């Protein structure tokens, strides 16, 4: 029964990933079974480069949106960024949505910070939200910041990796060398060292900004992971979005373990990769998006900086692969200590 559910969920997620990148305005179909109120809330979602179908955090946002559409009956409009565009073009995107009466308007990704800062004051009655940025909500009462304690989630999977490693050698692969991803690394390394202070940690970033291809190049991921496995690592954690697929391939080839990121990648991976995906660091962008929409539907939109941390279950680790079971007790213990404040996880390298 459990397996059947998981497969069904996997299939659904796969379907979501492979859906076209074009915008969709289909007013939500009557959700099957569950009772749902038809809402007059119109949600605008502005994706970062890659958009729906990037198998990374744009997709996570899309999942939250889809859930809101089905359960809350909201109307949605999704627009996507073009590579190399300027802030003016992002502003235009947000303005178009605002003028068309969409509220809340959720900008996915910190790249929208400057443009949202310019647009938000012009539409004081519109609710905006931005993922991965906390710099705007202080000055703009109508902007909600949706940020995550990725370092906390990474701390836990770091602890799991250190326990699972037999060689005392683990790896971290970041997609692009930006502060956001360094935050993952910082948490991961701290978590691993909390279990094994002498552990060796290899770290590599696939590309340097402004080359953001490291978030969508499985080939690069595979080469980097291959290198780490050959150098003795037996667990590799990736925070590299779409490049993660290559990390899993390398893990299969080396018969070693890998840790996914953002969503539970065990569920969406092909059958041959499932065994090697020990766990995934969950960054629940979908939860954040859903909560944001839900609060708007409830006429009490979230405001200020909303940090989705362990306490809020905004980050965490997945347990769908039974192989992780031996290590979860320790991770849960650490989790409690983080929530209680006994452990402070660093957010910088």
């Amino acid at each position, binding site marked *: 029964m459990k397996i059947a559910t998981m497969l069904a969920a996997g299939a659904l997620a796969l379907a979501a990933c492979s859906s*076209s*990148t*074009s*915008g*969709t*305005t289909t007013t939500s179909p009557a959700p099957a079974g569950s009772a749902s109120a038809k809402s007059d809330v119109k949600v605008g979602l502005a994706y970062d480069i890659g958009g729906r179908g990037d198998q990374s955090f744009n997709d996570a946002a899309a999942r939250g949106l889809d859930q809101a559409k089905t359960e809350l009956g909201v109307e949605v*409009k999704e*627009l*996507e960024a*073009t*590579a*190399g*565009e*300027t*802030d*003016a*073009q992002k502003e*235009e*995107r947000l*303005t*178009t949505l605002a003028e*068309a009466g969409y509220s809340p308007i959720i900008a996915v990704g*910190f*790249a929208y*910070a*400057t443009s949202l800062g310019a647009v938000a004051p012009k539409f004081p009655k519109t609710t905006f939200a931005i993922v*991965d*940025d*906390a*710099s*705007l909500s*202080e000055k703009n009462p109508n902007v909600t*910041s949706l940020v995550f304690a990725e370092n906390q989630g990474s701390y836990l999977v770091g602890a799991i990796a250190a326990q699972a490693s037999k060689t005392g050698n683990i790896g971290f692969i970041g997609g692009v*060398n*930006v*502060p*956001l991803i360094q935050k993952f690394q910082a948490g991961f390394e701290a978590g691993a060292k909390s279990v094994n202070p002498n552990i060796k940690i290899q770290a590599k970033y696939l590309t*340097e*900004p*402004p*080359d953001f291809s490291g978030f969508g190049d499985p080939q690069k991921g595979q080469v980097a992971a291959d290198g780490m496995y050959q150098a003795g690592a037996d667990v590799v954690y990736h925070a590299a979005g779409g490049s993660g697929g290559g990390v899993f391939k390398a893990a299969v080839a080396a018969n070693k373990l890998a840790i996914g990121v953002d969503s539970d990648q065990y569920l969406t991976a092909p059958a041959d990769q499932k065994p090697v995906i020990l766990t995934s660091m969950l960054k629940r962008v979908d939860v954040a998006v859903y909560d944001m929409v839900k609060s708007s539907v409830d006429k009490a939109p979230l405001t200020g*900086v909303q940090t989705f941390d362990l306490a809020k279950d905004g980050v965490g680790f997945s347990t769908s692969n039974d192989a992780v079971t031996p290590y979860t007790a320790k991770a849960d213990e650490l989790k409690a200590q983080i929530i209680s404040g006994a452990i402070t996880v660093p957010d910088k390298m």
Partner: protein
Amino acid sequence: MIGRFSIRGVALSVAAPLLAIVFALTVTSLVLLATGNAPLGAFSTMLAQLEKPRIQVNILNSATTYYLSAIAVAIGFRMKLFNIGVDGQYRLAAMLAAAVGGAIALPPVFHVATIILVAMFVGALWAGIAAVLKVTRGISEVISTIMLNFIATGIVAYLLAPGRLAVEITGSNNIGTKVIPESGRVPGLPIIPGTPNLVFGMIIMAIIVGVGYWFVINRTRFGFDLRATGASETAAVASGVNVKKMIIVTMLLSGAVAGLVGMPQLLGDSYTYGLDFPTGLGFTGIAIALLGRNNPIGIAFGALLWSFLDNTSNSLEFDNVPKQTVLIMQGVIVLSVVIAYELVRRYRIRMVASDVGRQLDAELVTTAAQGGSA
């Protein structure tokens, strides 16, 4: 005779772009139909955007940047020198100029001038490396400039870190150079009524660069040497052109203009070089230089067209037409322009050759009739 020549000349020079646009529209329509969208609807949606003052400002602003990039590329193209490295040159130049601009305090005009000069210097320097490699070691500038793009990316990434040239922006995942103070900014121009948005003041710089490009290429000895080298290197050498020197000077000029590419955005809008600074403008410039046939006026039209397509693609997406349609359209336009111009060029050469023949025949008859007094 002259009259006929020029009327047909005008007709021919209009024919090529017209042909290209008709062809591009046809192909795009087919793509739209194939994806189940109405072509006319999509085109009219885009055109309708033109009425919005805000969009007009955006089109002018993007076009300013594109124009500078295309001129930088065209300078090299006129000499058959393919500066593929405009992209790296402008990014490195913008980043370092932004860092300098944020670090110093000068009176308004001097501050802006310093930033611009730094950008031009860095752009020229970066392009100069490729030139020196070509002249001393015979390395194709195509390869070296592409490689230098990657190296520029690496350098920018290294320097754009807290503690080096970047400062963290509290609460944001973005990082950027220190914000350039008021004195180092170029005020916008309120030339489009109906919107608070301003047109980049640097549009004036772009116009100056365009006029300067035209003047240097067409009216100076240097420009003649440059064009001659592009038209036939062997003939240029025989005419006394020092090709090595030309390569160096031309690449430096191209790089200096490339250095300006990031300036409209930096001095008119961002005031900092951050992770979200636009990338890839150098490659847009290559396409637009091709589109404008290296001609300063042609490039202006090309930049505006490109910018129009870019800035109205959001509206397509809003109407549920995939915005990638615009990318297809841009690609098809460049290809059709290249092909159409080649066709028209060949046709023109055939026409002129047969004209020369006919003219000589006519002359002969006249001469004979006048009893040989030519």
